[in-house]
């Protein structure tokens, strides 16, 4: 085939050099994105002494679990993790119920009022009341301070995510729905039995978008939640890394053979605890993220 032959046209040395540079730049960038994580994971298992004495290492000489012991003992990070998981799971369910039930009517061409409601969504994307009116609504009108509802309700529908779902619904073949309608299903039954099951890929993607938002958000939690028992992991992390200058010299804690409280290691270990859940599930769900962005980037 002429085409495959043409692909083997010899590259000039200069062009090959460019190719090498491209590989190097991409590789370097990838390295820079992951090295901090590896260093922090390694550091969290190191002794305080090694952390101050050795400049850089990816494997500590002495493995120490002191930092993790401390974290488990004080319990803040673990409770934070628990709260974050709870906030994320319930939050995503709320997000998906609100987003899908709005997306479905908007995706139906025969839905009278479609244009009006779609415009209603677009206006919220272009203009908003801003932080203060929302804050007053949640804090002073709805009295949701120190309630997880303050984290769930305000962002229940992200218009961009909702539109991704809507576009996907719109792209489903009309025959699916027609067949169900002949069988006597009404709109809500069609939505539950036909539309949702055939939309699993986009539902997975958008659920993950929402999950990442919930897991990572800290500002709302900082504004609305002051009750320590309801702290999410990001708040705990911020407190330990930025606000505590030194880890409490807990006299009731036996630091074992390594002696000093591993302040730096504790900061690193808390970072690891907050990061690990995401890194653990990431390889399994990565394809849904890219898929979701691709679906979303097709305009509808």
């Amino acid at each position, binding site marked *: 085939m002429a085409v495959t032959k043409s692909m083997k046209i010899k590259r000039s040395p200069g062009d090959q050099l460019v190719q090498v540079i491209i590989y190097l730049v991409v590789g370097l960038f990838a390295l820079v994105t992951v090295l901090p994580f590896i260093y922090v994971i390694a550091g969290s298992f190191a002794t305080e002494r090694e952390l101050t004495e050795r400049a850089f290492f990816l494997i500590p000489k002495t493995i120490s679990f002191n930092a993790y012991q401390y974290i488990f003992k004080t319990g803040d990070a673990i409770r934070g993790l628990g709260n974050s998981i709870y906030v994320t799971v319930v939050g995503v369910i709320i997000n998906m119920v609100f987003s899908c039930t709005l997306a479905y009517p908007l995706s139906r061409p025969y839905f009278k009022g479609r244009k009006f409601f779609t415009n209603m969504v677009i206006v919220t994307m272009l203009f908003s009341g801003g932080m*203060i009116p*929302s804050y007053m609504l949640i804090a002073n009108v709805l009295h949701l301070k120190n309630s997880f509802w303050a984290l769930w309700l305000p962002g229940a529908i992200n218009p961009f995510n909702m539109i991704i779902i809507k576009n996907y619904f719109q792209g489903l073949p009309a025959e699916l729905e027609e067949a169900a309608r002949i069988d006597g299903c009404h709109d809500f039954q069609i939505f539950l039995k036909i539309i949702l099951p055939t939309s699993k890929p986009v539902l997975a993607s958008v659920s993950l978008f929402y999950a990442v938002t919930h897991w990572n958000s800290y500002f709302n939690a900082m504004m609305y939640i002051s009750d320590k028992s309801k702290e999410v992991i990001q708040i705990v992390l911020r407190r330990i890394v930025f606000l505590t200058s030194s880890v409490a010299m807990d006299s009731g804690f036996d630091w074992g053979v390594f002696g000093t409280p591993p302040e730096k290691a504790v900061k690193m270990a808390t970072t690891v605890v907050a990061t690990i859940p995401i890194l653990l599930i990431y390889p399994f769900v990565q394809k849904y993220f890219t898929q979701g962005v691709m679906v979303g980037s097709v305009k509808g």
Partner: protein
Amino acid sequence: MARDATLVKPKPKTESWKHALQAHKWLYIMIIPGVLYMVIFNYLPMGGLVMAFQNFSPYNGDSIIGAFIQSPFAGLDVFKKLFTGPDFFMLLRNTLSISITSLIFFFPAPIILALFLNEIKSTAYKRLSQTLVYIPHFISIVITAALTAQLFSTTDGIVYHWLVQIFGKANAPDIMSNPNLFVPMIVGQNIWKETGYGTIVFLAALSGVDVQLYEAAEVDGANRWQKMWHITLPAIKGTIIIMLILKVGSILSTGYEQIFLMQNSMNRSVSDVFDTYIYTKGVINGNYSLATATGLFKSIVSMIMVLGANKIAKLFGESGFY
């Protein structure tokens, strides 16, 4: 046909509301939660913008609604105070210096990386790099800030330690507290965190390019740059423009989460931006009117910017944002 009675064909001009409500009752029931949500959490706060034209105090009246009614009307006084106040120029300068620096350095980064990734022939190498560079996007800004603090700390930061070895103790950049390095630090964090993930939309657009175009170009003797210029870039032009419109729309929104985390007493002169100002004035100091007015100013500017950029894109024959 009997089928037509149930399968309502779109006849928007003649179809009455009564008929629509009967035939698709469930669609109207389904939309209730979403509409209620938007009314309460998007539209009701817009009503709260009235605070920007009042000397609002929550202690006026005996309920929050009473406070709105009884707070004295101030016309445009609050805006006058905002625009002529000592903070406004500083806020505008700080906000713009972050967003313009980010427009110049951060905006092109994913495009460049996507072009690079597109040139990589080895699927395994490409996939591995992609997997790695996407990771920081899924990490919270708190962790990004925590990593920055741990790596660049002047007492025990590993990167700072290297910088000292390279530049010497006196010249080593202390990005955590040097005000001159605040903007590069913020933009640098964004580049580190979002460049990889940002490539996805461009790679998606590139995946639609017919490989035969490249092959034909090669047969015609086109070199790498010519192929990039004439095939690759036109393929992602539309995506670039949409991303640019969105970016321009948020020119006054630097976000508060990241800035708030990286802000400290040493860099406050350059790190106070509109978003942090709104939070501090409103939520912390309780000056609701001033904070709301600042927010309204921001919202209006960003709306004008989005609509304007969209219009310009359309003038140049692009499809624009909507």
